[in-house]
């Protein structure tokens, strides 16, 4: 019964936001090549006539009362209102005295799940041609809790924290995602043979979530076995759910399989329905402002966002246009093996979208 109510609520929410016809999304261009790739995405969305209004905001660290670092008030307000964000790469300053911007965002919106769908791109060849998996990584605790002490001189202890609540939340999300995206199986990745209690707890929560979602196939696999099999035959994997550190490494491994961070989309799901989609590559300051950047990663993340919003036909149209342009090989940016400028690549995609 609760599922029916949830579905109805979803419908109502969607129709309410589309009453005016347009949905507002917070856009954070970022630093370096951020502004140019964001402009490219906006142009393509305009050509595809996507019913989205962009609200641009900047994210810099400001110090609030009591010395606590936080994001600017107008950015937070915008995100709380729209619940959807698209973010370009942010510069991580060294010795600026404040934590990284990504960490601040994560803490502000409680972005607990990092989702990276990895799919082989036809036309951008890598040694792996049959990748079609999704990594779902717990993003708030685990090995990245930042709790470290020097016990005695020369002995350092780092604490890995696993809580029942966070594990339950991420496991639930993984199965929800699998259901909403027509995925047939979820695999929990762990090292419970060595970290008996911590990964054991994580595994237990995954098993409990699996019981509630009998229609999805559930398996568990050791981290080392996953790594071993991933580089030999990635087609055997579907949805992978795991704690923070394994997720960090595995999601980058999978990005490497399909061609690197320049073509990998990523989405962060937070509490209270907030979702921020981002490109995970760096700011590339050496090519910033020169119209050489590749907007594919940000574009694919934006497409992920469209699917999250339910705008499947627009998502399909833009994705097909993007992949066809890459497969065509006539207009490609330098990192994809071509010679064209960012604007030319963008225009090629826009042209295809208009022709559809």
């Amino acid at each position, binding site marked *: 019964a609760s599922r029916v109510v949830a579905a109805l609520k979803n419908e109502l929410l969607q129709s309410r936001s589309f009453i005016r016809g347009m949905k507002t999304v917070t856009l954070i261009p970022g630093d370096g090549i951020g502004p140019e790739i964001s402009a490219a995405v906006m142009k393509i969305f305009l050509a595809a006539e996507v019913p989205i209004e962009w609200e641009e905001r900047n994210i810099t660290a400001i110090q609030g009362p009591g010395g606590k670092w936080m994001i600017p008030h107008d950015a937070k307000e915008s995100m709380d209102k729209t619940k959807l964000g698209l973010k370009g790469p942010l510069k991580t300053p060294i010795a600026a005295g404040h934590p990284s911007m990504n960490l601040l965002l994560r803490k502000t919106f409680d972005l607990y799940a990092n989702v990276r769908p990895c799919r082989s791109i036809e036309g951008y060849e*890598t*040694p*792996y041609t049959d990748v079609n998996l999704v990594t779902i990584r717990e993003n708030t605790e685990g*090995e*990245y809790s*930042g709790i*470290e*002490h*020097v016990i005695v*001189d*020369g*002995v*350092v*202890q*780092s*604490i*890995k*924290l*696993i*809580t*029942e*609540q966070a594990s339950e939340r991420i496991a639930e999300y993984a199965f929800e995602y699998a259901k909403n995206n027509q995925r047939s199986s979820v695999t929990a990745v762990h*090292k*419970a*043979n*060595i*970290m*008996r*209690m*911590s990964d*054991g*707890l994580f*595994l237990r929560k995954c098993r409990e979530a699996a019981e509630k979602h009998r229609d999805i196939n559930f398996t568990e696999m050791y*981290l*080392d*076995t996953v*790594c*071993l*099999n*991933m*580089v*030999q035959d990635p087609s055997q994997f579907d949805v992978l759910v795991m704690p923070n*550190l394994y997720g*960090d*490494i*595995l*999601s*980058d*491994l999978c*990005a*490497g*399989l399909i061609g*690197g*961070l320049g073509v990998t989309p990523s989405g962060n799901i937070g509490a209270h329905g907030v979702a921020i989609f981002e490109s995970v590559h760096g700011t590339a300051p050496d090519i910033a402002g020169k119209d050489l950047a590749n907007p594919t990663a940000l574009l694919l993340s934006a497409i992920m966002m469209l699917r999250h919003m339910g705008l499947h036909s627009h998502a399909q149209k833009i994705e097909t246009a993007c992949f066809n342009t890459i497969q065509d090989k006539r207009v490609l940016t330098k990192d994809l093996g071509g010679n064209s400028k960012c604007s030319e690549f963008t225009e090629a995609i826009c042209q295809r979208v208009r022709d559809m």
Partner: protein
Amino acid sequence: MAAHSSVLSVSRIINRLWGRHLGNTVKVFGTTLTSHRNKTLHVPLPAKYGGRHTVTLIPGDGIGPELLTHVREVFRFSCVPVDFEVVHVNSALEAEDDIDNAITAIRRNGVALKGNIETKHTMPPSVKSRNNLLRTSLDLYANVMHCQSLPGVQTRHRNIDIMIIRENTEGEYSNLEHESVSGVVESLKIITRSNSLRIAEYAFQLAREKGRRKVTAVHKANIMKLGDGLFLQCCREVASGYPDITFDSMIVDNTTMQLVSKPQQFDVMVMPNLYGNIVSNVCAGLVGGPGLVPGANYGRDYAVFETATRNTGKSVAGKNVANPTAMLLASCMMLDHLKLYNYANLIRNAVLTTMNETRLHTADLGGQGTTSEVVQSIMRIIQSKGQLTADM
């Protein structure tokens, strides 16, 4: 000097009486105190009686027993002067008597060859992984794995030649976990200066011995600033003593990305325990799978040889389809350690020759050969070399 040695003996007494209960804290202080004395990698010669060596054999679970039986078959056939002392470890028991016996046997013989012992999750968390217990009790601090592309095996990447040196006793595998509040579990990752220096020293020594040009430290010091930061600092300190070898460092997630796109850029890699697990499995997958790569665990006084990826292989156990290559190559590494170089080369060459005849690949390499067929082929090649052999 007197004070130093008396503190040393006190720590030894503590270790013996309460070492197992106080666990890692005592070991940490123990090693910090002893590290000043032993700068060189001195491994005493293993036991030899009547010209024959005795080696502890731990069959383990899954495919371990059958593969080790094949190893003994090949050794007997080639008249290798090695006798095996077999110690069984029952993974279903909660008591630690079995593994204690195995450890005592290895202390006695100095060298062991083992299969992987399964860790059952259904047992309470106080029942620790037997393999881990073995490694930490014998202080086998370096896990060494050499991944090389083999000409007879079809893989996506060619010309891979990477040596991976992984810290084997501390890091995330310290077995220190507690649930202070219900629903909140803390797991401690310990990095010590002495162990990091030790493993870095080992890596650079090995690189120099084998004529390698570059050592890469793999870490995540941008997030774990103190822990991996200490590891990286120790590596840098040791690197300064080896100016002929290039040293660089790479963050672990970038490392995995680079490994699947350009693995040829890596030469020797050194890293803490967990990253070692990930990177060694990725590299094993890149050169053809778990059935091909042997691994060695070296300590100051003991050496234990096994397959590099430590798989139990339960799904293929007893079906005569497992790949014997990894275990046989591990036994050759053991023969090298015992200084029986001629026998080591004889068996190794036979194994590699069989590998390059594609018809004789086992299922994991896409072939249809059975384990026994591969072993028979190896023994035939050994016989053809004209040395003394027993009956087939």
